[in-house]
């Protein structure tokens, strides 16, 4: 409990001379170079391989703002107070969701046929014939439109409300906080449904015989985990750039660390739940997913992920002292973020060559487009995120719960 008056922070704008001010330009360069190299290669003979690289990068990077959207909606709904000093970053991330409607275009209009085997008439067998009502081109596009529109709408609403708050008076802020809370509460349903169905449409249907009812939750777990790892790093970057050096304290990092730790366990719980049911039932339609991932080099990732993406961060982050140490927490966040990309690579890439007439078995082999796609899509996110973050105040300074956040302590 603090007895002195808590002052509102004044260092809330990224200084133009700091390294963070260069992030939009750096991101834009990466985006142009990465997307150029990737999409350029998609017109060559390796079109299919390139589009798998692109889908992997798209899904892995999209997970970060999508995780942010889920968390912001929950935070507004439950009137969270502790997070006000860091929430503007998450709101900036969701403000970049419209970008992903653009970045989705190559998947929908360039690689659609190469990526999804159910679009090939010769691959429709007795099982797929029963799924054609759902996995049909028109319906698939219509659904994709709904997801992207929902995320763009929710993202822009959250972002714009947050920015508008900076120039409202007290009565206006109070009125607006209630509106945002109501929209967020309803938005959680829209978010849950669109995220699950998008995961089914864009990732699960890569292997259309296979199904897993928990798959949407798996993608959600990956998303929110990646988001917390990202936000721990972006918060530290903000402070390194001289923003809110006093306002964001060890207490806030401790809570972000707890969420990173908690969702690490959640990811493992969901991943194992998916595996154990399929392993126990042993039905060929379902085991196919793990069978392709247990040969051709993929077995290293299949056995490595539980260790590197669960046991290592679990044991590392379990201690309170690690979560309250900035360097150690940043190391945990970087580790988790890298493993998030490995996880998505493991989800997407074994499907390349798994169908297509059985020319070859899917092997774990990297190609340069895997990296250029990540740099391109990731650079595009950093460009938009950096631009919006440096353009506005880095904290919602008029938020009625700012005082609660500034005084936040863990006990």
């Amino acid at each position, binding site marked *: 409990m603090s*007895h002195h008056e808590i002052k509102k922070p004044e260092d809330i704008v990224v200084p133009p001379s700091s390294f963070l001010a260069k992030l939009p330009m750096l991101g834009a360069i990466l985006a142009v170079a990465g997307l150029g190299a990737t999409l350029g290669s998609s017109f060559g003979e390796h079109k299919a391989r390139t589009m798998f690289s692109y889908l992997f990068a798209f899904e892995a990077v999209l997970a970060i703002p999508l995780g942010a959207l889920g968390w912001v909606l929950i935070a507004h709904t439950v009137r969270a107070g502790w997070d006000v000093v860091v929430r503007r970053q998450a709101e900036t991330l969701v403000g970049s969701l419209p970008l992903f409607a653009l970045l989705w275009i190559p998947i929908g209009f360039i690689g659609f046929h190469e990526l999804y085997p159910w679009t090939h008439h010769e691959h429709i067998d007795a099982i797929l014939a029963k799924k054609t009502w759902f996995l049909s081109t028109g319906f698939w596009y219509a659904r994709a439109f709904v997801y992207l529109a929902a995320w763009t709408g929710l993202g822009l609403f959250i972002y714009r409300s947050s920015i508008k708050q900076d120039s409202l008076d007290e009565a206006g802020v109070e009125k607006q906080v209630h509106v945002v809370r109501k929209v967020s509460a309803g938005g959680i349903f829209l978010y849950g449904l669109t995220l699950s169905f998008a995961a089914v449409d864009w990732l699960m249907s890569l292997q259309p015989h296979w199904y897993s009812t928990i798959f949407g939750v798996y993608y959600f777990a990956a998303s929110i985990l990646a988001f917390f790892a990202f936000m721990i790093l972006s918060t530290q970057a903000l402070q390194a750039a001289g923003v809110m050096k006093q306002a964001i304290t060890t207490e806030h990092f401790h809570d972000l660390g707890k969420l990173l730790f908690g969702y690490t366990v959640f990811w493992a719980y969901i991943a194992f739940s998916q*595996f*154990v049911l399929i392993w*126990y039932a042993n039905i060929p339609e379902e085991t196919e997913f793990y069978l392709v991932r247990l040969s051709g080099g993929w077995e290293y990732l299949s056995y490595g992920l539980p260790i590197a993406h669960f046991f290592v961060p679990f044991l590392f982050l*379990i201690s309170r002292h690690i979560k309250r140490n900035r360097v150690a927490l940043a190391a945990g966040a970087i580790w988790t973020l890298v493993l998030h990309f490995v996880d998505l690579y493991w989800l997407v890439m074994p499907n390349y060559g798994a169908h297509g007439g059985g020319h070859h078995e899917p092997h774990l082999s990297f190609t340069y487009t895997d990296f250029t796609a990540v740099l391109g899509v990731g650079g595009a996110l950093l460009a938009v995120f950096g631009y919006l973050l440096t353009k506005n105040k880095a904290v919602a300074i008029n938020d009625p719960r700012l005082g609660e956040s500034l005084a936040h302590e863990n*006990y």
Partner: protein
Amino acid sequence: MSETKSWGLLAQYENPHAIYKAAEKVRDAGYQQWDACTPFPVHGLDKAMGAPPSKLPWIVLACGLSGSALMLLFETWAMGEAYPMIVGGKPLFSLPAFVPVWYEFTVLASCVAAFLGNWILNGLPRPHHPAFASKAFERVTDDKFFILIEAADPQFDLEKTKALLNESGATLVEELEP
């Protein structure tokens, strides 16, 4: 000597702010055997009291890990040795099948350790306490805040301690019988 007859002193405060300041004074005076009782958690009071970090996390970790190891051993022994049975064509030692119980027992062992450890570290159950004799102390569950300093504390001196508590903003100081 009157000190030997007394269990200690009870001081009453009106609000969280007052007890927070008083706790800092008692801490700085070097007292060890004392406690604060409040109707609701006063955030930061443990820091004002200079309380050391809790040992509870270590108890939970130790019990969680040993519970975890014991359950894995038990499952291996039960399924492989004591009552070997093939289920669904799986090997006798099937780690994936063991995981749910293994995991749940780790959680259970940790939770029970946290619950019992909390009781033991707090000296519970404790049916009687000298402070219960005080009429004023009844309001600890309502709207008053209390500091108890035990006579067993090496710093304890009836007059000096009484003076310290009075100075610290107490609205009432009582001597407690053992």
